[in-house]
């Protein structure tokens, strides 16, 4: 296992210590239990946005804590949902009196743990709402299953709701806006290589030199299909077509297009994928109004990419353009 770590059991704590040292001007990190919170208290009357999930997806979520985005984030162990006590403490620390909005990726563990934390916060008289992301079209949806995974849309969700919260939107409004965003975005990902969970010490699946996995999530799990490696343009099409036809996005609509790297793929390749993804969007009659290209929701050192399309109107574009000041996403301030 080739990683810049010390011991598997220390990965999360030491990375948080590094974050604390690098961003002491803006973040406060609690180590027992683990959570990341803005250094400045949440403004009175502003809804606190709390997210979290397993570690290994950096910069998500801790790197998105800051003005215009999250108020707090709870990192779990690598690929493991954090626990209710973390979410409870983070919610209490971040609460500014206007309640807590939880942004939860749709995984059984995350949903159950956040639910318990919400109950604990409500027991203390704090209003709590939750917004789910379940944008991964690679997973077949059904009433009888765990449903779809939350992936790339989570980044856009956190940015947009963060901007709305900063503008003073109340808890009910944020919940409704979050549900609208949830219903308007879709994603799909692929991997050229697997990743290695530190405490496992070996790749979570094996891929031959000429194979890739299509329809992967962000936890090193195998995808839906294993196919021969293909050119970037073909990969972009394999991801974009299911994404666009799922919602479906309709000609004339405007989208935010997000091409994400899985952690081990360099930016030069992401731009090559973006090039084709934007071309495919245009071919479908869509206007790409905003774009994001980079590794924002990762799966350790996995090589691969995911695309996310979010249908947007002027309200969402305004929220997208609003100032944000976090370690990983920053503009306008």
């Amino acid at each position, binding site marked *: 296992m080739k990683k810049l770590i010390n011991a598997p059991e220390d990965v999360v704590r030491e990375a948080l210590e590094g974050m604390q040292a690098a961003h002491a001007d803006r973040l406060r990190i609690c180590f027992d*239990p683990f959570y990341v919170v803005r250094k400045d208290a949440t403004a009175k009357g502003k809804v606190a946005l709390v997210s979290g999930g*397993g570690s290994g997806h950096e910069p998500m979520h801790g790197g998105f804590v800051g003005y215009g985005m999250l108020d707090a984030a709870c990192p*779990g*162990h*690598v*690929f*493991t*949902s*954090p*626990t*209710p*006590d973390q979410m409870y403490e983070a919610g209490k620390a971040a609460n500014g009196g206007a309640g807590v909005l939880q942004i939860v990726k749709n*995984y*059984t*563990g995350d949903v*159950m*743990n956040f*639910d*318990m934390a919400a109950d604990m916060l409500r027991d203390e008289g704090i209003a709590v709402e939750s917004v789910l992301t379940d944008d*991964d079209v*690679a*997973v*077949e949806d*059904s009433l*009888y*299953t*765990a449903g779809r*995974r939350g992936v790339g849309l989570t980044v856009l969700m956190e940015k947009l709701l963060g901007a709305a919260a900063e503008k003073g939107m109340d808890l009910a409004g944020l919940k409704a806006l979050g549900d609208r965003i949830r219903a308007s975005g879709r994603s799909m990902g692929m991997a050229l290589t697997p990743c290695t*969970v530190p*405490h*496992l010490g070996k790749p*979570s*699946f094996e891929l031959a030199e000429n194979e890739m996995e299509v329809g992967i*999530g962000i*936890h*090193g*799990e*195998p995808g*839906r299909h294993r196919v021969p490696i293909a050119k970037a343009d073909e990969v972009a099409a394999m991801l974009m077509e299911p994404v666009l036809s799922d919602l479906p996005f309709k000609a004339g609509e405007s989208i935010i297009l997000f091409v994400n790297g899985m952690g081990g793929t360099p930016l030069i390749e992401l731009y090559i994928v973006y090039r084709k993804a934007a071309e495919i969007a245009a071919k479908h009659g869509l206007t790409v109004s905003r774009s994001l290209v980079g590794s924002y929701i990762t799966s350790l050192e996995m090589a691969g990419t995911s695309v996310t399309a979010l249908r947007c109107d002027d309200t969402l574009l305004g929220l997208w353009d609003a100032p944000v000041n976090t370690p990983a996403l920053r503009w306008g301030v």
Partner: protein
Amino acid sequence: MSAFSLSQALAWIKAAAQSIDANAAHLSELDAAIGDGDHGANMARGMAAVTKKIDSAPPADLAALFKSVGMTLLSSVGGASGPLYGGFFLELGKQSAGKTELDAAGLAAVLGAGLGDIRRRGKAEPGDKTMVDALIPAIDALAAASDLAQGTAKAAETARAAATATAPMLARKGRASYLGERSIGHQDPGANSVALLFAALAQACA
């Protein structure tokens, strides 16, 4: 043996902690095949925390023990199994409030209530390829027995067989469900940790 009391319960939890620790790598490998490869690490971390907890603050009765186990698992396991096993033991705590001894039927009833909590929370049906598929037949086997030692031995055997029998199932809950057809042919990790828990229970009641 005819009754399950605090000393058996403590022996159970300690044996379970040892067995989970010894089998952590195997559980994680099962999880790597159809999930995210952390089930063994999650459970081992949780059971180590439990051991530390009950060593430092020995619980006075069954209810206190199970509550302590449940709370500790909740705040140390994470993932799907954290709230499921955490809630399971919290329910065991509630159900054994005021009780100092349980016979086979009584223990089965308490465990059944714990299973009920798992099913309420996780909404898994039998055949969905989850821990529920090992819990149901194991608890049924215990409920059908009159002797605790024999009943828990039978339950352990049943849980083991049921865990193995999850292999051909198509996962409909948890991470393995994302794999669809590709989940077939692999045993469910949670059903396997259930089998370890019941083996430890049988050992403690032997």
